[in-house]
């Protein structure tokens, strides 16, 4: 059944099977996922307590995690647990980092331009030569997040919400088919968080890209996604539409995680 499902996975989807991963000397698996499929164009929210494995799962799908076991196919590429995926694949997957991961001393435009590095000829880019197509992609990405007026402003002079928009613009400049966002609203106030979620949802829809984001605010993100995947100690404990995740089920997930942390505090330090 599982192997048949893997064979039938439509192009552009994510397909994971028998995934196992643990960090260093930890005694338990950080990830234990027997099967997970995400169709192209879906908008998914990963929820769960701290240490549940959300960021690790996103890192795995982004091709930056090493040493895992099982099978992982993303956008038609079978990922190797020991090797970096090819550059031609990397540029199709955009990642929005929790703490923005921007070069603080550079301008907004320069940071957004970094999203094009996977597309340009490396030697030409080192000489500062980018094509009109790159410039156009950067302009469009800055407009999409309403940061075009700040193009020449340094990132370290922007607010947290503006920095997150720049990080999203850098991701959009990649023209990705898959957008991964690791807790993109964790450090933002509710109003700014909603505007960031709106941008992510609308831009992903406009570009027909798959969106997977992780969050600790299920109530807030419910209106922006069509599927919730809840993780607890690396396992999927809920997978379905947001309206099926009832309050008591949600509090159960977080209560279980709190109990696990209490029993093994060193693994969550």
């Amino acid at each position, binding site marked *: 059944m599982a192997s048949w499902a893997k064979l039938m996975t439509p192009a552009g989807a994510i397909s994971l099977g028998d995934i196992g991963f643990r960090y260093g000397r930890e005694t338990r698996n950080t990830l234990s996922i027997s099967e997970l499929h995400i169709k192209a164009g879906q908008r998914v929210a990963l929820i769960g307590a701290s240490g549940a494995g959300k960021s690790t799962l996103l890192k795995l799908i982004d091709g930056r995690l090493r040493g895992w076991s099982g099978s992982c196919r993303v956008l038609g590429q079978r990922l190797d647990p020991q090797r970096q995926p090819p550059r*031609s694949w990397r540029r199709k997957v955009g*990642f929005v980092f929790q703490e923005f991961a*921007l070069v603080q*001393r550079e301008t907004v435009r320069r940071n957004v331009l*970094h999203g094009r*590095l996977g597309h340009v000829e*490396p030697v030409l*880019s080192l000489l500062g030569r980018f094509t009109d197509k790159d410039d156009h992609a950067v302009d469009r990405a800055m407009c999409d997040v309403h940061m075009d007026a700040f193009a020449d402003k340094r990132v370290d002079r922007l607010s947290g919400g503006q920095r997150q928009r720049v990080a999203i613009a850098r991701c959009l400049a*990649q023209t990705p088919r898959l957008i991964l966002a690791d807790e993109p609203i964790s450090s933002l106030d509710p109003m700014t968080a909603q505007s960031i979620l709106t941008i992510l949802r609308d831009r992903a829809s406009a570009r027909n890209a798959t969106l997977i984001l992780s969050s600790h605010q299920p109530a807030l993100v419910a209106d922006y996604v069509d599927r919730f995947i809840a993780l607890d100690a690396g396992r999927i404990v809920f997978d379905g539409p947001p309206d099926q995740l009832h309050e008591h089920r949600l509090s159960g997930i977080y209560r279980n995680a709190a109990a696990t942390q209490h029993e093994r505090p060193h693994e969550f330090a």
Partner: protein
Amino acid sequence: MSSLDHNVTTATGSNRASRTRSRARACSFGQFSISLTVALVIIWSWNGSDFDLLKLANSGTRILDFLGRMLPPDPSVLPVVIASSAETLRIAVLGTVGCVILSAIFGLLAAANLTPRWVHLPVKALLAIIRGLPLILVAMIMVGAVGLGALPGILAITFHATGMLAKFYAESIESVDPAPIEALESAGATMFQRLRFGAWPQIAPDLLRDTLFRFEMNLRESLILGVVGAGGIGFYIQMYVRAFQYEKVATLALVVVGFVVLIELGNSAVRSLLR
């Protein structure tokens, strides 16, 4: 609370109070010991040297006489001053170029986030030893090794400045935030693209600021290198002082001050651009 609980709590509380008191006593004893040692060292230095405030007060007329002999400054030495100043500047420039090249290599080797412990720890120790050697001693060794002139000055500045500049470079490299580099990796950037667009913009302003600061120091230090025969204006300062030609020394001193002020103004302007 039962009486047993109360007793245990009281005992624990009094133990903690006793520990705090003994720690406070140990702390005040330590402070007293340090203060006493510092005082003894100052008294020892005062008695051992020929430092006498009365003598200093009585030598006022002598100081005035000395300053008087510097006036008016003798402009006839200007051609010599300009030529030797140019040599001093050349020593500082080439010494800085040399130390930048060596510091780039040693800075990379000393950066704890780039090299294993068995590489960066010995390199850091070597840089500390180089920093500990006085410049004049290094210059004397270089004069002995390659003879009089500008070359030993350049070598001495290169060697001595590397100890400090490589440490600064290593610290800049160690302070690089890895998150933007990881983001570029995620976007498909190659290793050289990650270094050029992720790491370089983070460290370039610091490296340039440190290099300018070191150049300023190198210029000041190369002014005195001539005293031991390692070229530059210092040689003439020493020569005229020994010949009691203070009006010529005054001209040299004025040029040196102007020189240093000019370089400092230039450096400040560049540094303000880097902020």
